[in-house]
């Protein structure tokens, strides 16, 4: 029996908690992608770099607060600097919309044009971020490291295996829940949120109903800027801030949005967790679990790992391809918010 519990603890410690954390980050990222798709009708490739930009501003804010000696320990100071980062990302989004996207919108350009424009902006924002903060690693986490460590857990339960919960993991999961709840409340209960859904559902009828398209677009960018900054900051707190990593994050984020049904907020969240759990479950070495669950004295020679962690990114690619072949509309067949 203890063997069984030990096996479960191993799974919880190395798959459940990390996947929930990573899944929350992907879900928030995918939510931003899905909002742009639902309202503005294009796949926004610049979203990953917008996450990097918002996170960068948050880091500057964090440094500033740290220099002033402000701290909300045990929570990371970055949470306090988040509004500044959001402000920065929203401002950049609105500026880019006004100077770049608006022109194409007025010409009623096709979604492919928008997609290519967003790739251009992806390189632009990426360059901007690396120009300002440099391409190196930035660790901006402070506060308490663990809520409870593996050693605490072992001592408390008397088990051989430990379950640790890092502060960043708890902060990520709780923030994600709050943000997603606020997002759904906004979209489903407020007049402005409903007008966004109406616009996404049927643009012409929304115009006939007197919904102002410019306002809907503006609110979309504000939400997207906020979501990007929150997702990026949580990711940066959990791992570290490396400008190049956000471009790599784009694939799992798009996979999450598409798996869930692009344009559907609920789908984006489900997709985020599906991708995260698959990535981690497929690349995890199950040796310990097998040892616990197998007959006494049995120990596998290999790591019992389906795929090396280097191939992590292949998992989201594979899921993406399977979904596009089997169910191209995604789990929640989306199109509208």
């Amino acid at each position: 029996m203890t063997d069984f519990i030990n096996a479960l603890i191993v799974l919880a410690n190395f798959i459940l908690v990390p996947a929930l954390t990573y899944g929350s980050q992907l879900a928030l990222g995918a939510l931003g992608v899905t909002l742009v798709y639902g309202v503005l009708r294009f796949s926004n490739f610049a979203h990953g770099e917008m996450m990097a930009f918002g996170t960068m501003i948050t880091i500057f804010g964090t440094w500033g607060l740290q220099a002033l000696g402000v701290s909300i320990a045990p929570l990371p100071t970055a949470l306090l600097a988040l509004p500044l980062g959001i402000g920065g990302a929203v401002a950049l989004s609105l500026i880019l919309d006004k100077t770049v996207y608006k022109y194409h919108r007025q010409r009623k350009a096709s979604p492919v044009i928008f997609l290519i424009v967003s790739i251009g902006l992806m390189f632009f924002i990426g360059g901007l971020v690396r120009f300002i903060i440099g391409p190196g690693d930035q660790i901006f986490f402070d506060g308490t490291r663990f809520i409870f460590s593996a050693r605490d857990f072992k001592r408390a339960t008397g088990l051989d295996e430990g379950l640790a919960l890092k502060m960043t993991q708890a902060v990520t999961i709780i923030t994600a829940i709050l943000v997603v709840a606020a997002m759904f409340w906004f979209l489903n209960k407020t007049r402005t949120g409903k007008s966004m859904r109406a616009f996404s559902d049927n643009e012409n009828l929304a115009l006939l109903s007197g919904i102002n398209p410019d306002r809907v677009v503006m609110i979309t960018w504000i939400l997207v800027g906020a979501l990007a900054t929150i997702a990026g900051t949580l990711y940066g707190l959990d791992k570290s801030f490396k400008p190049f990593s956000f471009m790599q994050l784009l694939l799992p984020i798009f996979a999450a949005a598409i798996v869930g049904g692009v344009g559907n907020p609920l789908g984006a969240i489900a997709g985020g967790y599906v991708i995260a759990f698959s990535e981690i479950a497929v690349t995890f070495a199950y040796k310990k679990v097998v040892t616990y669950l197998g007959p006494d004295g049995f120990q596998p020679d290999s790591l019992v790992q389906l795929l090396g962690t280097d191939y992590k990114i292949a998992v989201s690619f594979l899921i993406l391809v399977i979904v596009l072949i089997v169910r191209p509309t995604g789990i929640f067949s989306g199109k509208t918010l």
Partner: protein
Amino acid sequence: MTGGYGAADILKECTIGVDRGEIAVIVGPNGAGKSTAMKATFGMLPLREGHVMFNGEDITHLKPEERVVKGMGFVPQTHNVFTSMTVEENLEMGAFIREDDISDSIEQVYELFPILKEKRRQPAGELSGGQRQQVAVGRAMMTQPKVLLLDEPTAGVSPIVMDELFDRIIEIARTGVAILMVEQNAKQALEIADKGYVLVQGSNRFTDTGEALLANPDVRRSFLGG
């Protein structure tokens, strides 16, 4: 009104009008410009000549959205509901331009279409064709329009539902709303019409009361199938 989308005019000196509490119906063969004539009154077609008058005011240069504010309601032929939103949300969106309390108007729509009250929490996309049309008309009613434009409200619904929709449209007209509609089911539509316009190739061919048009042998022969 004279105008079209490109170089060629679709409408040629076409005149249509409706007074409050009246039902006016535009009928005619396919491609006669029926829907186009109605869209022209709503500002969705650039006019080369002519005017659109509303309540004695020239609104020829107003955009469709601005005409909604003035008191015009428009129900397009297709894509006329927000399919992913509930019936009630559809009605709320219809009243988007209003700042005052809209609960009375919602109740009025539910009184007119009791089935919608039952289905208020259901997404409009899950309703039957007839119910969807009711949502579409209800949505347009939410601005408390003085003129309601209906583009083939009975397209694709069964004859029974069609009769019921026409009954409801008469009820709406009785509350003092002017109704202008385009119809394929010319005979039934003219029966309830105070005024009928028969359009051919973008011009008025016959204009009379609905009754008179139904009795007119020329109209019967060419457009009503004998």
